[in-house]
């Protein structure tokens, strides 16, 4: 079975600084999909960024980028130029390539942003 581990329960960053959230996973599959979701105080689950395992190029979405290391089974999220609105719980998630499979989430990292 696949597992997702987020080893940082809490992280903090100052506005305009950069922060990296860690995520590792365990799988025997060669093809899969990885996601970072943001959950603000409203509790809405919002997709931040996704990565296909067969793509070597790291995904980027504006201020958000990932460092995907397939051999190390690592998928970290870098937030650049942090903003107060980035404060939230961040979940790393794994999805198998079979149709209809559900997301497997890590325990989450609470990010606080100070001015």
């Amino acid at each position, binding site marked *: 079975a696949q597992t997702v581990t987020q080893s940082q329960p809490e992280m903090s960053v100052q506005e305009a600084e950069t922060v990296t959230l860690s995520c590792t996973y365990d799988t025997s599959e060669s093809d899969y*999909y990885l996601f970072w979701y943001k959950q603000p105080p*409203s*509790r*809405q689950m919002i997709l931040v960024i996704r990565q296909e395992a067969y793509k070597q190029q790291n995904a980027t979405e504006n201020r958000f980028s990932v460092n995907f290391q397939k051999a190390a089974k690592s998928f970290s999220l870098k937030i650049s130029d942090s903003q107060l609105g980035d404060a939230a719980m961040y*979940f790393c998630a794994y999805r198998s390539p079979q*149709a*209809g499979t*559900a997301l497997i989430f890590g*325990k989450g990292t609470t990010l606080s942003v100070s001015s």
Partner: protein
Amino acid sequence: AAGVIQSPRHLIKEKRETATLKCYPIPRHDTVYWYQQGPGQDPQFLISFYEKMQSDKGSIPDRFSAQQFSDYHSELNMSSLELGDSALYFCASSFWGAVATEAFFGQGTRLTVV
């Protein structure tokens, strides 16, 4: 754009009562997933449906049941409620084969059992 709609948004029930949560997926999405998120916890997969058939089962208690209807909306039925069932229940929808894309989440139903 239309999103996943969940109702009710908040629900308070007493122990041993029953509750029904509803989920209306994004139009044309054929797959629905239910997740349970306890306080300070990560979302745990409960069950999923595709074309009105159960497609996968996670850590759903026997006291819970769910179904998907012909209009693709889904209902999660919870009986003999326990204090530990207090959680945020998410529904997500997607196209069956679209594993590379995100599953779109509703805003959740917050269930409180007292």
